[in-house]
């Protein structure tokens, strides 16, 4: 190919820093740690909320988890 292609040059440590910063922020903030207020991790809170808004409470008969549709983020 004779066409010229533009590349964005970035030093390894910057790429690693940026990417790792993003990942670690997400893991710490939105995945791995339970919130002190309710003791739930985000994913658990999402499930409970989805079940609640579908009316799937403790006094109802069981319902397959796959039917809880609202649990997308």
């Amino acid at each position, binding site marked *: *190919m*004779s*066409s*010229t*292609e*533009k*590349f*964005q*040059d*970035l*030093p*390894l*440590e*910057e*790429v*690693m*820093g*940026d*990417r*790792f*910063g*993003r*990942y*670690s*922020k*997400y*893991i*710490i*903030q939105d995945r791995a740690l339970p919130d002190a207020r309710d003791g739930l991790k985000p994913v658990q809170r999402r499930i409970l909320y989805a079940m609640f808004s579908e009316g799937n409470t403790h006094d109802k008969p069981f319902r397959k988890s796959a039917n809880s549709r609202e649990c997308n983020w």
Partner: protein
Amino acid sequence: MTNKQSPSVYNDDAIQVLEGLEAVRKRPGMYIGSTDGRGLHHLVYEIVDNAVDEALAGFGSHIIVKIHKDQSISVRDFGRGMPTGMHKMGKPTPEIIFTVLHAGGKFGQGGYKTSGGLHGVGSSVVNALSTFLEVTIHRDGKKYCQRFENGGHPVTTLEEIGSTKQTGTLVHFLPDDKIFSVTKFNYDTLAERLRESAFLLKGLKIELIDEREEGKGDVFFYENGIEAFVAYLNEEKDVLHPVKYVEGIQDDIEVEFAFQYNDGYSETILSFVNNVRTRDGGTHETGAKAALTRVFNEYARKIGLLKEKDKNLEGTDIREGLAAIVSVRIPEHLLQFEGQTKGKLGTSEARSAVDSVVSEQILYVLEENAELSASLVRKAIRAQQVREAARKAREDARNGKKNKKASTILSGKLTPAQSRNAAKNELYLVEGDSAGGSAKQGRDRTFQAILPLRGKVINTEKAKLQDIMKNEEISTIIHAIGAGVGTDFSVEDSAYDKVVIMTDADTDGAHIQVLLLTFFYRYMRPLIEAGKVFIALPPLYKISKGTGKKEVIEYAWTENDLQKAIKKVGKGYILQRYKGLGEMNADQLWDTTMNPETRTLIRVTIEDGARAERRVTTLMGDKVEPRRKWIEANVNFGMEDDSNILDNEFIQQEEDQA
């Protein structure tokens, strides 16, 4: 140059001589490398290096560097202060220093014995590229001051402004925003470099103060010099022994050498000449390496770990896991560099001087620490065995039966390109089978190969070597690239010109990129050095309107792009935020991310070996504490969106032949 005459008028008048500093402003690249962030910071180094040279000569052991609120910089040393008399050229000497190129005290007249400065252009270049520069000199009980503006035009002469008990020079300057594309100084970049200078001169105290932020500052002061430097390089690794340090003088060349082994597999050797980093090594580094190899082999034979018939250990075996620093001081009349930038030492005397000092003294060190030495030799022998085994495996794979076996390992996952042109082929490492599927459909099959990766890749920084080699994902990558691994890797054998990491634009995708980069850095470093490792950037948004033939589609990579695209598409647009590659159709993927004509690729480079090394060990190593510190210092927790990698201030646009 500035002549706007038509090319036909090329007569005597067309030849222009740039006078003095004008030349610097016209072609700054020749003096400071570039006019981006790197060049900007280079100005500071020029002035700081002068201060360091003063300290090196034995005058003043304290330097203060300040970043002011207006992005100007001041550097204060406590040396002798510049000479303040009238120079024989009829102007005050400081004015000569700051306005005349190739005016300096380091051409061997006796002011300095050894120095990093060589050409006598540093101060004048900084002056030429500054909006203003003010020099204040404390000397002989008096205080003098002179100010230059707009590229080095003196607006005052050298004025006596009072008396003082101090000595030394203060240079305060503001880089010209007409010259530099970036004018904001990066604290960490400066800190890193100043720390380096402090390491190299025992007992030198360098203070960095950032006035843009309350209370931000550092003091760099190391009594042990390069010993502390080596310890710093290994700070986040598990080391095998305390730092060993040797020094000596031969043929007027002062040699310092410090080393320490860690339990890793990579080698880090940094070399310095007169406190200036020689990025590309040179004779002093060669000398140190040669000496190390010879002494280790001699010692290994002497204590019988290498038998008579055994092959000698190679340099790379011995240097596995080594962190070392070579620092030499060479007087001006012997000093020689290869090329314009002081990147590589050419002085041939340095090789023999370093060689003899290092070999003589390292032998003592080895003899004195018999137990340690024996374990280091055994480590090197293990490295040799691993290397031999890898070579054998590769040869076997190349010829004969095993070849078939290798290709069957591959066939399941790798979708090869049709042509076998190693100068053009591209290998896409794609996150997940589903995205791999659409990449397969969307690619240009003549030169693009696809290798889908399932889930997260193993962390090659933490895992044991055997586990890494057993890992299916890693071994497929190694086989696909086909150029070996580790010390055995050779870029020439690579079956691909570009290895492109293509992951979802989400957080887990970011993690996979980090893991893969760690692998490439640790085991295929030459591939990164050759600029063959890339990161693909899939678009974050799709903005569309209408359906069928009237459909208008725009893609956006950043928030700015998004606003522009929305304006372009107009009212009634539909916005889709891509969460993964899987949401894209094959043709969309081709248009946005894989087509060489339209895609955006980030090319991963290694500019500063020490910084790259440190960052990788901090982020991926098995020590938790430094990582925690890094995250606390660098991650902004909160609800706001993350910044885009394309906004990074270090990014460099470069044209390249594809």
